[in-house]
C-alpha cells in the first residue's frame, strides 16, 4: 500500500492504535529479550537486570557432557531431517504442481496432515509403532518422525515458488532435447532454489525445536536437546537453560534471516 493510497486519517488520530499495537509487540518479544539478558547473569537466582555479569551458564552448558551430547544428537537429526525432507518435499511439490494426477485434494491433505493432527497423537502413535519395529531411541526413528513433520513446510514453500515460475520454460528445454532430469536441474531448479533453501531451513528448525514427539521416541543415547530441556524444566528451573535458550533464539534469528535473504534474491 503506497502512502497516497492512505486514508485521510492522520497518524496523530491513530496514536492509540500504535500504542496498543506496540504493547502487543512488546508482549511478543519481551520474553526472548529477557531470557537473553538473564543468561549473562552471574547469580543463580536469575535476577533482571543482572547485578553482575558472567558467562558461567554458558560454561555450564558447553562444559556438560550431557548437554553437549544432546545438542549433537539434535544437530545430527535436524541436518538429516532437513536433507530428507527437502528431497521428498521438493519432489512432491513438483508432482502436485504438474496437476497430472487426480485426487490432488487428497494428496495435499495427506502431505499436510501433520500440521493439523494433534502432535500428542502423532507422538503416542509413533511410539506405539516404533515399539514394534524397534525404532524407539534411534536416530533413524527420529529422522523419519521429524521428516513427516517438516514435509508440509517444504511442500508448501516449494509449491509457492513453483506457482510463480512458468513451467513452459522446462517444456522448452525438453523440446530442445534436454532430458527430464537435466531440464529440471538446469532450468527449473536455479529459478526456485530460493524456495527450496527456505524450505530446507524451515525443516531444520522444525526438527531442532520439536519437543512432543521426541519426548516419546527419543531417550538414552539419542536424547534430543529439547527432551533434556523439558525434563530439566519439570524438575526445577536450571539457569543453564537460559544459556541454551539464548543459543536457540540466536539460531532462529540466523536461520530466519538466511531464509529472508534467500527469499529476497528471487
Amino acid at each position, binding site marked *: 500500500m503506497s502512502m497516497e493510497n492512505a486514508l485521510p486519517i492522520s497518524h496523530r488520530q491513530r496514536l492509540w492504535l500504535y500504542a496498543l*499495537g506496540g504493547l502487543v509487540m512488546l508482549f511478543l518479544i519481551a520474553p526472548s529479550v529477557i531470557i537473553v539478558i538473564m543468561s549473562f547473569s552471574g547469580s543463580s537466582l536469575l535476577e533482571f537486570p543482572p547485578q553482575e555479569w558472567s558467562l558461567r551458564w554458558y560454561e555450564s552448558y558447553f562444559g556438560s557432557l550431557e548437554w553437549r551430547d544432546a545438542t549433537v544428537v539434535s544437530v545430527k537429526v535436524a541436518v538429516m531431517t532437513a536433507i530428507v525432507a527437502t528431497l521428498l518435499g521438493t519432489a512432491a511439490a*513438483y508432482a502436485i504442481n504438474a496437476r497430472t494426477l487426480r485426487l490432488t485434494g487428497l494428496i495435499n491433505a495427506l502431505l499436510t496432515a501433520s500440521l493439523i493432527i494433534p502432535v*500428542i497423537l502423532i507422538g*503416542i502413535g509413533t511410539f506405539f509403532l516404533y515399539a514394534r519395529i524397534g525404532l524407539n531411541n534411534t536416530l533413524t526413528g527420529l529422522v523419519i518422525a521429524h521428516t513427516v513433520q517438516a514435509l508440509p513446510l517444504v511442500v508448501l514453500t516449494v509449491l509457492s515458488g513453483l506457482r510463480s515460475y512458468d513451467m513452459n520454460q522446462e517444456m522448452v528445454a525438453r523440446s530442445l532435447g534436454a532430458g527430464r532430469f537435466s531440464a529440471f536441474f538446469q532450468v527449473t531448479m536455479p529459478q526456485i532454489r530460493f524456495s527450496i533453501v527456505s524450505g530446507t531451513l524451515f525443516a531444520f528448525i522444525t526438527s531442532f525445536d520439536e519437543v512432543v514427539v521426541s519426548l516419546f521416541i527419543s531417550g538414552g543415547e539419542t536424547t534430543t536437546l529439547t527432551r533434556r530441556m523439558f525434563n530439566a524444566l519439570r524438575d526445577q528451573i536450571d539457569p543453564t537453560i537460559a544459556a541454551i535458550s539464548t543459543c536457540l533464539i540466536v539460531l532462529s534469528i540466523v536461520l530466519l534471516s538466511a531464509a529472508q535473504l534467500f527469499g529476497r534474491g528471487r
Partner: protein
Amino acid sequence: MSIVSASLDHAGKPDRAFNAEALDADARREARGMLALLSLGLFLVFAVIIVPIGWLFWLSLFDEGGQLSAANYARFFEQASYIKTFVTTFKVAFTVTGACVLLGYPLAYMLSQLPRRAASICLIFVILPFWTSVLVRTYAWLVILQRKGLVNTWLMDLGVISQPLPLANNFAGVVIGMTHIMLPFLVLPLYASMKTIDVDCLRAGMNLGASPAATFRQIFFPLSLPGLASGLVIVFVLCLGFFVTPALMGGGKVIMWAMRMEQTTSLYSNWGAGAALGVVLLAVTLALLGLFHWLLGTRATGVWSRR
C-alpha cells in the same frame, strides 16, 4: 502447433486423433512418474501418521480384557476426572482464543495500515516468536511469572503488592504462556486477509461522510471477519491438543486433554483409554476445521503457507 488436425466424423463430432493411443500412453507414463515422485513422501506420512492412528483407533475399541466394547469411550462420561479434563481444556482454549483476539486484532489492524516498510519491520515481532522454540518461550514465561520471578519482584519492590501473586503453576500461567504461543497463529492469517481489503471501499465510505470509527465498524470490520474466523479456528484447534505449556506451567493442577493422554499411556500404560482420548481429540479437531471449511469455503490452515 500439432501436426495432427482433428477431422470430423459423420456425426460431426471430432474424430480421435490417429495417435490417440500413443498420447494416452504418454499421459499414463507421465502420471506414473509424478506418482513416483510423490510416493516416498506419501509412504512416510502413511506409515508414521495414518497407520499408527488407525491402529490406536482399533485398540480403543477393546476393553482391558480384550473384549470388543465401548468402555474406553463410556469412561469419558462416567468418570469425573475425565469430565474435569475436558472442562479445563475447553476453558483454557476459549480463554486463550479470546485473549488472542483482543491482542491480535489491534496488532493485525495496525500492521495492515502501516506503510509497507514499517509493516515488514513490525512483522518481525510476530514472525520471530513464531519460529522460536515453544520450550524456550515457556521457560521464559516461567522465569517471568514464578513466585520469585520478574513480575512479582518488581511489583513487590514498587510496593504494589506485599505477597507474591500466584501467576505460574496455575490456570493464569497456562493462559498467559499459551496466548503468547498462539498469538502469531491468529495475527498472520488475519493480517494477510486485512491486506486484501480494498482501500477504495474505505475511502468511498469516508467520502460519503462516514467518520473513521463508522468506516471501521461498517466496512473494515465486516470485511476482516473471514480472516479473523480463520485465525480463531486454528488457534482454538491448536489449544485443544496443546501439551508443552500446560505440562510445564500448570503446576500439575491444570490437566489438559493432551496431558491426560500422556499420563494414561506413559504412566498407566492404558493404551485403549489413551487411544480413545486421541480419537475423540482428532474427531473434534477435524470436525471444527471441516465446519469452518464448509461455512467459509476456505481452509483454516493457510497460516503455514502464507508466511
